[in-house]
């Protein structure tokens, strides 16, 4: 999963609402990695950041037809490219 990180790649947590990016790599532990894979998180897939909760709360992202909530801590482990 460790793709070369180019200059334009960043973490999912630093995206802005409404932005669409492509997943580059996922750096979570195995258990969460499995779950994310099953939810549709894969390198090369498009991901849209829908909104962020206030006070550094969770993020709402959309992959395909599925909306997912995740905390910032988890989103920081997912690299994307706009």
């Amino acid at each position: 999963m460790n793709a070369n990180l180019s200059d334009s790649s960043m973490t999912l947590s630093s995206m802005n609402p409404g932005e669409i990016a492509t997943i580059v790599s996922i750096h979570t532990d195995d258990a969460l990695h499995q779950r994310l894979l099953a939810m549709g998180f894969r390198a090369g897939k498009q991901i849209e950041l829908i909104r962020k909760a206030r006070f550094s709360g969770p993020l709402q992202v959309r992959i395909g037809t599925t909306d997912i909530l995740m905390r910032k801590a988890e989103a920081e482990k997912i690299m994307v490219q706009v």
Partner: protein
Amino acid sequence: MKRIALLGMPNTGKSTLFNRLTGSASRVGNWPGITVELLSGKILLGGEIVEIIDLPGIYDMHGFSEDEQVVRHFLHENVPDLALVVLNATQIERQLSLILQLKTFNLNMMVLLNMADEAKKLGITIDAAKMTASLGIPIFLLSAKYGNGYPEALQAITKALRFNTPGMPETVRSQLEQDEHIEREMTRILQQTVQIPARLSDNLTTRLDRIMLHPWLGLPIFFGIMYLLFQAIFLFGQPLQVGVNELFGWLRETAIGPLLHNLPAALQGLMLDGVYNGIATVAAFVPLIVLFFLFMAIVEDTGYLSRAAFLMDALMARMGLDGRSFVMLLMGFGCNVPALMGTRVMRSRSLRLLSMLVIPFSLCSARLQVFVFITAALFSPKAAPLVLFSLYLFSFAAAILTALLFKRYYPNNEPFVLELPPYRFPTIRQMLMRGWHEVFQFLQRASKFIVAGVVLVWLLTNLPPSARPASADTWAGILGTWLHPLFAPVGITPDLTIALIFGFVAKEIVIGSLAVIYGLSGQALSGALAQQVDWVQAYSFMLFTLIYTPCLSTIATLRNESNSTGFAWFSIVWSLALAWLLSFMFYQGARALGY
């Protein structure tokens, strides 16, 4: 007996289908190979009794979460005659992987594509016949909610059960390399059979979320909804609770009392004030639990619970809890018992335990009755509302303090990654099912414990037979005197200590017990109370009443939900310690300040 296992991802309507299949005839049971209890039910299919088991929702057959392991171990030890896999038709493009994973196990399998109605609305068309041929597994489109496609599926299940079960291979877990093969298969089948519009239409869910999850309006709307729910449970629940109490009182007067009047007085007291009152205590909770879960079903099934988690998570995460814990904590202000049962929506055990440790500090309606009576007796009409408000603040403070102190002992290692389902209308049937299920479980599990507890307190306050009930000569009185050195530093008199022992059973009977202790009631009791204690003592007593164990029903529920007697004891000991400490600090502080 033939066995059907119900499998699928979370949020596929699997449980709705299970309820529809089994009606209300389901039970919780243990299975070989796993430690958690599963729901199962027996139904008549084609002239044969068949058992259906509802397995936990999972995303991945090769995953490592608790639920995924439970499913694998269950399948390993209890090979079903048919695996019924429920998929969400609106998310077919990613749920298909589960089918392909399962296919490698050589199970006798059938697939139900649920929520076909929603998929249709989203413009997703699925060619079931072509998919059946492509997968080599029978596929049925249906809507478990409305029952469309249900008879056809049932017929096919009956037919499928006639086949013999091929042996489940010993090596269930395939290596991760196989997932790549699955990915290719998925693309191939999806390309041939499913068309999904490139971008989903700007549907109702998106538009509703723009308001419900609005950066500024989201939280006020959330609190508004919670307030309304709370009010609704109060509004409908209290008259029902009063009604149930009156019904039991009336039955006692007209039927049970006369029936027992030939028995010796002591035995009569034991039967009426012990056993019968215990049953009445259990019954009084029934309307509250039904109502609570009726409303919870709305919050959960509409998809709002995940949204509440989104809104409140930032705050709750700092306390080691999550957004859903907060919803339950708020609900606890109505009644702790159903709020504790409601924590089942959480997957992580440590998160559930920490939430269950915190919920009993919510100032429930029963405690409010005690506080209203005492503040009216000891405080001026101007000060009374402030006193009540301060107790609510203490309630929140105790919950937050407990969460902060114990969060490191209940580390929540489950990452917070939740699916956000679209808004849906819950059906009346679903709601009623839920209410009935929960009441049934409460009655089944907690009733014996509560009745036994009420009988025990009756014995304590009525023995030895020579003593006047609830007086200082009874065992409870002796216990009160014996505990006096412990309660004197917090300003609680031996009489009030006996009331606290009663309060252990239920806060509803605290004032009643004071009436028995003083031999007075209503205005006279208020007057007597005001003469016996000053406001500092009264407030200290209220603080203690607020923080220590809410009631026996809460303990019974806590024990059953956590499946741990040790945890229930821990909750009792901690709340008693905190109650004493807070009352001590308040009482000694107020006295030191010269009040």
